[in-house]
């Protein structure tokens, strides 16, 4: 179950770290159970706000925050909430943190909140968050839930950055708003348009598939 370290020389610290259960709880979200590339969850926000790297990062952070806070609260209340009303309660909790995040982002920058638009509010219905609440936090301790949330959040951020940087680079010629190519660069406008989002995600998924296949062989 641990992440494989093929290099013999590295055995020791990394191996131990990798095989410790709490590290694994965190690490699994990065690649093995990456929410976007492997579980294919939270597609809507992934596609919609990954047109620049910065937007992707902000969205990723916001999602991670909500995921973390709701996981904590749900894990600590897991023995209190009756089964019949659990979904409604989870939604309440998640919506609360999303609202808080929304206000926080508005307070930080008008520009950013304009760029992310309604998608901050739509974190509520990001299947990933409810999914983690239902599948993990409601059954595990607070500590493990924190690790899980951080892992999944990091995985989500990685995915958004993967998409965002490439889309911004090709579509805008910049990364994090910093121009990389000379001014004369001919932008691939499609990359920041919806079809480009679909294609880019498809290509990243393909890369992941290829990696998995290679590993399997």
């Amino acid at each position: 179950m641990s992440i494989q370290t093929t290099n013999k020389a590295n055995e020791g610290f990394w191996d131990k770290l990798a095989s410790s259960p709490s590290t694994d709880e965190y690490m699994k979200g990065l690649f093995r159970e990456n929410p976007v590339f492997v579980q294919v969850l939270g597609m809507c926000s992934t596609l919609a706000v990954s047109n620049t790297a910065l937007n992707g990062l902000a969205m990723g952070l916001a999602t991670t925050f909500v995921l973390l806070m709701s996981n904590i609260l749900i894990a600590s209340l897991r023995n209190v909430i009756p089964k019949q009303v659990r979904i409604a309660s989870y939604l309440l909790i998640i919506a609360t943190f999303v609202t808080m995040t929304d206000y926080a982002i508005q307070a930080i920058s008008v520009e950013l909140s304009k760029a992310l638009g309604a998608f901050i509010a739509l974190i509520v219905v990001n299947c990933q968050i409810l999914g983690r609440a239902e599948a993990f936090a409601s059954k595990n301790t607070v500590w493990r839930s924190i690790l899980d949330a951080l892992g999944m959040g990091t995985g989500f951020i990685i995915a958004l950055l993967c998409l965002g940087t490439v889309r911004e680079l090709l579509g805008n010629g910049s990364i994090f708003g910093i121009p990389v190519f000379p001014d004369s660069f001919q932008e691939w406008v499609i990359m920041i348009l919806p079809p480009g989002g679909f294609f880019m995600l498809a290509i990243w998924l393909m890369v992941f598939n290829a990696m998995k296949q290679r590993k399997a062989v």
Partner: protein
Amino acid sequence: MSVLISLTALGGLTLLLAIMLIWANKKLYVFEDPRIDTVEEMLPHANCGGCGFPGCRPFAEALVNGKVLPGKCTVSTDDGKAKIASYLGVDVGAEEKWVARLACAGGTNVALNRARYNGVKTCQGAALVSGGGKGCFWGCLGHGDCEAVCDFDAITLNAFSLPVVDVTKCTACGDCVEVCPKDLFSLHPISHRLWVNCKNLEHGDEVLEDCQVGCTACGKCAMDAPGNLISMINNLPVVNYSLNHNTQVPIQRCPTGAIVWLDDKQGAVKGTESKKIVRKGERLEGFS
């Protein structure tokens, strides 16, 4: 002030919703045995139909309703069956492992092809074109429909295009039985060791013209067998498995090795007097 308003508003809202949900839970709830889901979860999800039900869920329903026992599942491991049994508080209903067996030994090294078949490379397709071009009409065509249809990778074609069943993987789901156009497969309990490896209804040299390992209907096995264990019907020996004689005697004098003893370790064991196979490799030519 706004704190108060919002507290009341949201508190009221949740109160309202909670009441509604509770009411709905009582009035509108439709009972469905939750055990069905649990049992379905425990089943292997192969949906192979080996149990006789159209899929795993109907089987799970039948299990929960006590209509069948877990042992009917041909795919699940013993552990899995025991788990389901203990969950439902029933008997496992252990059944002996059944496997699929092929009644032909005529690979390309020993059996002749009369004609060269062109077309779709499936037995189903070939069988409809003058029987598929194999010299022996009853023999295996070797295009591997059974290999393709087996969901458990239990059937592989050997070097002579003859299917070999891996008894450890075989679940006796019956797909190969259905798919074989020559009806060469049948399901048997694994304890049936004595096995007639031929379906050719001809007798004598005419069999040998087409295949070196065919049954020539000489009847030696039937003579050697104790009691009525083997009888000759339609130019083929038929083993009466209900007699359950655990003997290798009948196979010993078979001149072609058409009747064999299936051993767990060594596979098909031929009798001591069976002839060595002369031809090697694929043979297409040679019309006799």
